[in-house]
């Protein structure tokens, strides 16, 4: 177990190193020039060169990358080009909002997705199953901004149940979390359905029926723990998808998370922030997958971590 954990952590560090290199390289070859963004249109060529030198952007790629990584290893994520604040500070101030949204969204996703999947599997082939699967298909294919605007219009503008945007109370959280939850639930419900259908055909379910157990006990105690395994592995992967979706949803609902921060930074080619947000997201994904793998043996004793 300890050996497994150490090996996984080393792997994780290598993944993060790879992500940092690729992102840094892509930003380096990008035709957009951050110095132009800082200096403004009116700046003279001399000013531009000065700023470039100051930021070290005139150096070769390898030197720039080495400098960045050197600082990063000492805990320094650099300063934003435009806001002059520490990137670490900016991210830390926005991380709680994003984490809160993430927890809320994953909760909605799981509750909606798993319930729909289980119900569809139990009523397989009937009208209820077909309705749920069409619904899941709609949620999987609906664009984020459409769903978020629709919910915003109905529940905030027309009904006035929730605030239109912002951050601070539980009511603020509901609409963005539900939006992300609805969008993600389609995957979970389809996966849960097929997994559950497989499990319900298993010999040990027949054994459970032959024992004279109630249907509820067969489904909840025997089928569910077996069916949920592939879904747990998916939660780890889902964090990655979530990080992509958060950019749009945070903008629509004015949620002050790192998605918004990233959105603004990309528009202004603010390289330190883009790097920072990318690495934090990558860290979250790696951590999520690691946690999913660590949870699995508690549900299925056959899984041995080594």
């Amino acid at each position, binding site marked *: 177990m300890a*050996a497994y954990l*150490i*090996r996984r952590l080393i792997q994780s560090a290598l993944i993060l190193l790879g992500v940092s290199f690729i992102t840094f390289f892509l930003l380096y070859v990008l035709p957009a020039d951050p110095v132009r963004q800082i200096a403004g249109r009116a700046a003279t060529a001399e000013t531009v060169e000065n700023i470039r030198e100051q930021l070290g952007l005139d150096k070769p790629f390898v030197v720039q990358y080495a400098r960045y990584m050197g600082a990063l290893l000492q805990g320094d994520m650099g300063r934003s080009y435009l806001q002059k604040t520490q990137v670490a500070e900016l991210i830390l101030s926005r991380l709680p909002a994003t984490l809160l949204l993430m927890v809320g969204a994953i909760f909605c996703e799981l509750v909606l997705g798993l319930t729909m999947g289980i119900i569809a599997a139990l009523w397989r082939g009937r009208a209820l199953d077909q309705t749920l699967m069409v619904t899941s298909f709609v949620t999987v294919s609906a664009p984020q901004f459409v769903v978020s605007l629709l919910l915003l219009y109905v529940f905030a503008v027309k009904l006035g149940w929730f605030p239109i945007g912002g951050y601070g109370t539980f009511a603020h959280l509901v609409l963005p979390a539900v939006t992300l939850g609805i969008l993600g639930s389609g995957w979970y419900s389809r996966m849960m359905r097929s997994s559950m259908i497989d499990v319900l055909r*298993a*010999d*040990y379910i*027949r*054994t*459970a*029926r*032959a*024992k*004279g*157990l*109630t249907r509820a*006990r067969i489904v909840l*105690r*025997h089928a569910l*723990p*077996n069916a949920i395994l592939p879904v747990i592995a998916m939660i780890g992967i889902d964090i990655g998808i979530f990080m992509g979706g958060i950019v749009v949803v945070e903008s629509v609902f004015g949620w002050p998370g790192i998605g918004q921060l990233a959105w603004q930074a990309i528009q202004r080619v603010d390289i330190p922030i883009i790097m920072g947000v990318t690495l934090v997201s990558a860290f979250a994904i790696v951590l999520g997958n690691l946690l999913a793998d660590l949870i699995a043996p508690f*549900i*299925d*004793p*056959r899984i041995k971590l*080594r």
Partner: protein
Amino acid sequence: MTLAETTPTSGAVTAPEPVLRVEGLCVSVRTEAGLKPLVQDLSFQLRKGETLAIAGESGSGKSITSLAIMGLLPPPAVRVTGGRVRLAGQDLTSLPEAALRRVRGNRIAMIFQEPMTSLNPVMTVGAQLSEAIRAHEPVSRSEARTRAVEALRAVRLSEPDRRMDQYPHELSGGMRQRVMIAMALALRPEVLIADEPTTALDVTVQREVLDLLRDLQSQMGTAIILITHDMGVVAEMADRVIVMRAGRQVETAPTADIFARPQADYTRALLAAVPRMGQGATRLPVTSDPIAWLSDVVVRYPLHGGLLGGVTQNVHAVEHVSFDIRKGETFALVGESGCGKSTIAKALVGLAPHEGRIEIAGQPMEGLNAAGLKAMRRRVQMIFQDPMAALNPRMRVGDLIAEPLVIHGIGDAASQRARAADLMARVGLEPDHLNRYPHEFSGGQRQRICIARALALQPDLIIADESVSALDVSVQARVLDLLRALQTEFHMSYLFISHDMAVVDNISDRVGVMYLGQIVELGTRAQIFGNPQHPYTRRLISAVPIPDPTLKRAASPRLSAEVPSPVHPVGRQPVRVILRDIGEGHLVGTEA
């Protein structure tokens, strides 16, 4: 119990009241073409303490009958369309689900064929046992646990307290089937339905489980319905037999009568097809010219672990095995699951990395390049256990049979097709069916397709790995006949791998007995079956159920010995078995 049977059976005053009566049972499946009958007009009675065997081949409706009695038919397509199932007078077919649930597991219990998959992998043995008890009796958790431990002790499972907290994957197949039996009998049901309870088990484990079932039955007076295809198991266990075919009862009689005086043609054919030990024909001594020669072959699979993922343990699958297969002979490897017999087959076709020497037709396999291996594989072909899994379901049969020719670039498309048609005819299939897909054939026909495919390259050696194990006995007999005829015609050798001693006795010329990766005894068929020397060989032979109810076997020791693990830490070697010739090439192992 509310509607107690009032009319006693006329005449038989002393006979106990039947616990279960099945009257004119009909089960049908709904298909697009309407209702298709699976079981038709089946009637029987079962008395306390009696064992009734329902015997038949696949598709006979025997398993469907057991599920119908339990009310476990897969809804909504399959259902009871007529007749009654009366448990102490109460009709189960008309009971609502909630009432039926109180009967299931409580008054009628069931054990299934596959102990490996019939227990929930994520629940402990104890939780699954206690749950079965608590589903029917209002007892506390701790009380249920106490009774569960008792039930495990009753099935003679070692260390019952420790087993309670173990998960199914930590137990062997035989131990899991004991757990299933403990679960079924914990509430002392009136009726136990055992659906092929030992089919998936090794023969020595089968012997232990059958002994156990018989002992428990005599203690508890349980009535048993034994569903099986194995006439040997029927002869040993049953008081009465119902022979079923295509959903109908063909014949029913006391066990002794069925074997001594079968009335129906089908029963006679079925009994004739059953492989029996001691009926193999002794063939003329074969030449000593070997087609395959193995010397000191070792196959080990490393297990990784530790911080750097290095090799910490090895699975010693095959240990220092030497033997040869001569031209035109059938060499059989027998042994129980995990003994390494299939690994040897893999090594022979270059699919398992090995140490030691293997020569095919005088050519060493070691150091062959890809082209050399490919040429060598032309000489050795394989037939596997499950023909459905061995045939690509999306290819036509003609293409499947011709594929080896295509791979080795033999002939053009037209000649390949003609050859495929020839081969189809040779294995007893219609050459016109070349354009059909595998699912359009029956199990036995599919195995014939696999044989035709193996013959396509005119190999010197065919490896048949459990190739008839999944087939019904009547089909099995015909496939064995075909293999024999083909051998005479093409003068091939067979390496016949099987766990079935009776089949091996029928087909083989020489036999190697394997145990834990090593050969413990090797000799001619007559030497091994007529004069078995190694204790393991004797145990294997004596464990085989004999399809003759008049033959009373000596009580075997009621002890469960688990096969030791072939996994050893790096550097530790298993105890080596040294073979000594005790005369006329009969090699017997002694531990060095």
